[in-house]
Every structure is written in C-alpha cells, then in structure tokens.
C-alpha cells in the first residue's frame, strides 16, 4: 500500500497519525505542571508556582489538537461507527482528562487574576485524580496502538 504524503487523509491517518504524536505534549506538560505545583505548595516557592502555571497553560492548549485529531481519526478511520470496549473507554477517559486539565488550569488562572486570592488546596486532589486519568487514558492508547503489546 503506497502512501501519498500530500494527501490530507493519508497524512492524518498514517501509521504515525498525528494523534499518537501530539498526545505526548499534554501528558508530559500536565504531569510536570502538577509536579511543580506540588513542589510550589510544599516549598512556597513562587518560581515553581509560575512554572506550574505556564506548563498547565500549554498542557491545556495542547489538548485541543489532541482531541480534534482523535475525533478525526474516529470519524475517518472508523467512519464514526459506534465504539465499544477499549476504544470507547479511551475516548471517554480522554475527554474526561481534557476537561480536568482545563478545570485545573482555570483554577490557577482565576487565582492569578485575583492576586488577593490564594490557590485552593482542593486543587491538589483534583490534580492527582487528573494525573491518574491521564495515565490510564495513555495506557489504553498505548495498548490500542500496539506500543504495550
């Protein structure tokens, strides 16, 4: 099967499909953001808090192309057929992870816009849950792509 590198479908559905490439950005950025945030909370270090904020911002932004390419792959490669099993779990957990990443970013953004307010400590629990969800989604994604096989 010869692939045309200038065909948009081929490019998006290639075996190195963009979803599989792009997904590493929000995973890495979010996990690092949470690590910085925990350290900032523990050490009361403002530089670490700033690092956490900017990592979170880029992590949240990078979820957009990841979700889009995932949905495009579903619509084009599988023609939008009803999903079940691992594929469905991957889709649901991926969407839930993205929502949580944005929610955590929103908490940080709100605190930053109101200098008098401090970051709520409950965010640390949400961040921990989000890291677990991201890890589980990534594990299923790796399983689907054959990396874990």
């Amino acid at each position, binding site marked *: *099967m010869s692939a045309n590198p200038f065909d948009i479908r081929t490019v998006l*559905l*290639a*075996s190195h499909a963009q979803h599989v490439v792009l997904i590493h950005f929000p995973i890495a950025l979010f996990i690092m953001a949470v690590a910085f945030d925990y350290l900032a909370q523990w050490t009361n270090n403002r530089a670490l808090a700033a690092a956490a904020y900017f990592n979170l911002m880029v992590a949240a932004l990078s979820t957009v192309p990841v979700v889009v390419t995932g949905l495009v792959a579903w619509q084009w*490669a*599988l023609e939008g*057929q009803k*999903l*079940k*099993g*691992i*594929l469905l779990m991957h889709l649901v957990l991926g969407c839930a992870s993205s929502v949580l990443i944005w929610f955590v970013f929103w908490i940080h953004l709100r605190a930053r816009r109101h200098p008098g307010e401090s970051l709520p400590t409950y965010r640390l629990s949400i961040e921990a849950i989000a890291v677990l969800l991201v890890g589980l989604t990534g594990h299923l994604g790796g*399983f*689907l*792509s*054959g990396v874990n*096989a």
Partner: protein
Amino acid sequence: MRRSVSSIALIAALGIVFMAIGTMRRGLIARAQSKPESTAVKIDNFSFGPATLTVSVGTTVTWTNRDDIPHTAVSTDGVFKSKVMDTDEQFSFTFPKAGTHPYFCSIHPKMTGKVVVQ
C-alpha cells in the same frame, strides 16, 4: 426359453441398479461442488494470518480477531469493510468475482493483507 427370460430380467435389474448408483453419485458430486467454500483469516499479534490468501470465486472468507485489542479489515479498493472487531469477534465476506484485494486494519494501518480471488 424361461432361462433366457430370467437372464434378461437379471441383466435389466443390474442395469437399473448401476444407473441408480451412477445417478446418486453424480448428485452427491454436484452437491459437493455447489456447496460454497469458506476459509478463515486469523488476526493475532498485530498481523493477519495468512497474510496472502488465494481463494476461488464465491468463497466466503471469515476474519476472526484473536488479539486482545480491536482490529478491522478494510480493503483498499472499497470492496469490503468490517466494523471494529473486538476479541473473538468475526467478519465474513463472500467474494463474487475474481480480483486481488489488498486490505489493512484501519486502526493499525501497518497491518496489511491480501485476498486473491481466482
């Protein structure tokens, strides 16, 4: 005279028996020939086995997913297209005419196979 009549009757009876056996045999052969053929492709460890399958026109090919993860079988020429097959699920397609049909798994495009219909 009586003896020759019974000989003729015996020969006629044997002839009828042989004709009946011949007719039954032809019927059985015809039935065996008209019975549609079927063959299987096993999906396991991210590969189609056999990767290239040669079948005759009218053969039904059944793909069975023996892998732990979902797969599909989609021909590049659009002749057949399975739904997502989870573990132990199957997809069958009967090839009505001759041709070569390369196919792949749309979730794992590196997984490829070919059905040659003669």
